[in-house]
């Protein structure tokens, strides 16, 4: 698969409001130009999920630019949008697997952006796709589950499938919306390790929304702190201080 070396992703003055007059994102400016995990932390409701969904246009931002693969994603529609979207892999908190499809079929849905619906309907995947899917499945340790239905897996296994599905898209960037929040601590670490490995192997940035600050610091190459729709910290993970955390989450009684 072709490795993407371009300028990854730039967000310029991004604003979004679900209801007029109640902005969720206020003038976000971010440049993503290095591979590895970029952790986005911040309290619930501060717009972390909205930010990720504005990047791949599952949500249409109110204003601003998202520069990706040499186009402004906010200005494209239809086929053009889908052609870029297929290079943005997304991982979800609740995994969002298609429960009644088998594990391998779920992985191969990552190729839907590359094929016609007719071919997809007839399950006409290329041999390359099928090989990649099985190799990826083996890499995430689920080789024996290929033919099982996705709803028979445990949470950690499902998230591995979710990540593998995103990687099947041959992404230039990964978006992960709280991928570990529904998992136990050990599994959460394993999932972060997997994301880190894959991001490095594919040499792409992985934007990860995450609540667990110490877990984020352990894996991230960079951290972004958000509060009230603004970016309030952007820098190396070890640069985060208690003062920053107070500013991001508010209050201090929760800090021991």
């Amino acid at each position, binding site marked *: 698969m072709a490795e993407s070396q371009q300028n990854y992703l730039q967000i310029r003055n991004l604003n979004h409001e679900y209801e007029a007059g109640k902005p969720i994102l206020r003038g976000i400016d971010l440049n993503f130009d290095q591979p590895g995990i970029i952790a986005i932390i911040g309290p619930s409701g501060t717009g972390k999920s909205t930010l990720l969904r504005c990047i*791949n246009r*599952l949500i249409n931002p109110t204003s601003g630019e998202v520069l990706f693969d040499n186009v402004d994603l906010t200005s494209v529609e239809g*086929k053009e949008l*889908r*052609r*870029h*979207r*297929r*290079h*943005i*892999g*997304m991982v*979800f908190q*609740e995994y*969002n*697997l*298609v*429960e*009644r*499809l088998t594990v391998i079929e779920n992985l191969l*849905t*990552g*190729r*839907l*952006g*590359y*094929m*016609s*619906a007719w071919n*997809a*309907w007839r399950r006409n995947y290329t041999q390359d796709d099928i090989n990649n899917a099985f190799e990826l499945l083996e890499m995430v340790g689920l080789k024996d589950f290929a033919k099982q239905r996705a709803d028979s897996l445990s949470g950690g296994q499902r998230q591995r499938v*979710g990540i593998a*599905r*995103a990687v099947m*898209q041959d992404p230039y960037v990964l*978006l992960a919306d709280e991928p570990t929040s529904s998992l136990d601590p050990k599994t959460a670490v394993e999932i972060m390790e997997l994301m880190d490995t894959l991001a490095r192997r594919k040499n792409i940035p992985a934007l990860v929304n995450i609540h667990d600050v110490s877990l984020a610091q352990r894996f991230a190459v960079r951290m972004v702190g958000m509060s009230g729709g603004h970016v309030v910290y952007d820098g190396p993970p070890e640069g985060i201080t208690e003062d920053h955390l107070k500013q991001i989450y508010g209050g201090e009684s929760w800090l021991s």
Partner: protein
Amino acid sequence: MAVVKDYPNPFERSPANTIGVIVIAAYLIYAAIDMDLSLARFLEGLGHGSALLDRMFPPNFTRWELLLDGLIESMQIAIISSVVGIFMSLFIGLFAARNMMPAWVSSPTRVIIALCRSFHPVIIAILFVKAVGFGALAGLLTLIVASIGFIAKLFAEAIEEISFKQVEAIRATGASFTSIVLFAVLPQVFSRFIGFSMYQLDSNLRNSTMVGIVGAGGLGGTLFSAFQRFDYDFVTAILLTIIAIILLGEFLSGKVREIFQ
């Protein structure tokens, strides 16, 4: 001095409730009197009934060729109309689903479904007999319309109840709308669609024996002429055949549902 205050009984019957019960009872009595319902009339009816039963048994299968012709035509009407109706309903149901389509698509589609549902199949059958003439074609069209009116609505409702998380995930892969429908919507509704479709086949089998009564082909026509010629023993034979067909359909649809859980 503390005054002990009684709380109102939360289960006290409201006056509106009492009035409602009285009104319904009064109407029932009025309607029965107006229709001249009486025990004497009922007993007289029983006498007619026993005379009819006498002539209906034993069933007479000597004209089995006539019966078989009607039966085959009914089954053809039922099966073709089910297949066509279900196929069309897949699309109409999708277009009517408000979570997948903008209002300017779903609203007119819902009107079409409502139109298909607004008349009993007998009335639609009469209209089609007038429009395209006597015979199986009218019955076929009738049951297609009836199928769309019924299962397109159920399909639409099933689609409206799906989990959007799976749709969101497939959309994020860059999949086209058609691929999203095939991979995120269809797997979630497939087994319910099978259930609805089997139910519709069942109901079309039943209705295909009815449309003949108004001249739209099938076993119903045979049944109606047997009634008119007072061949009550042949009527019994036809009714038994219909029961057998319905039971067979029930059994087969149960099997199909089992296969697709």
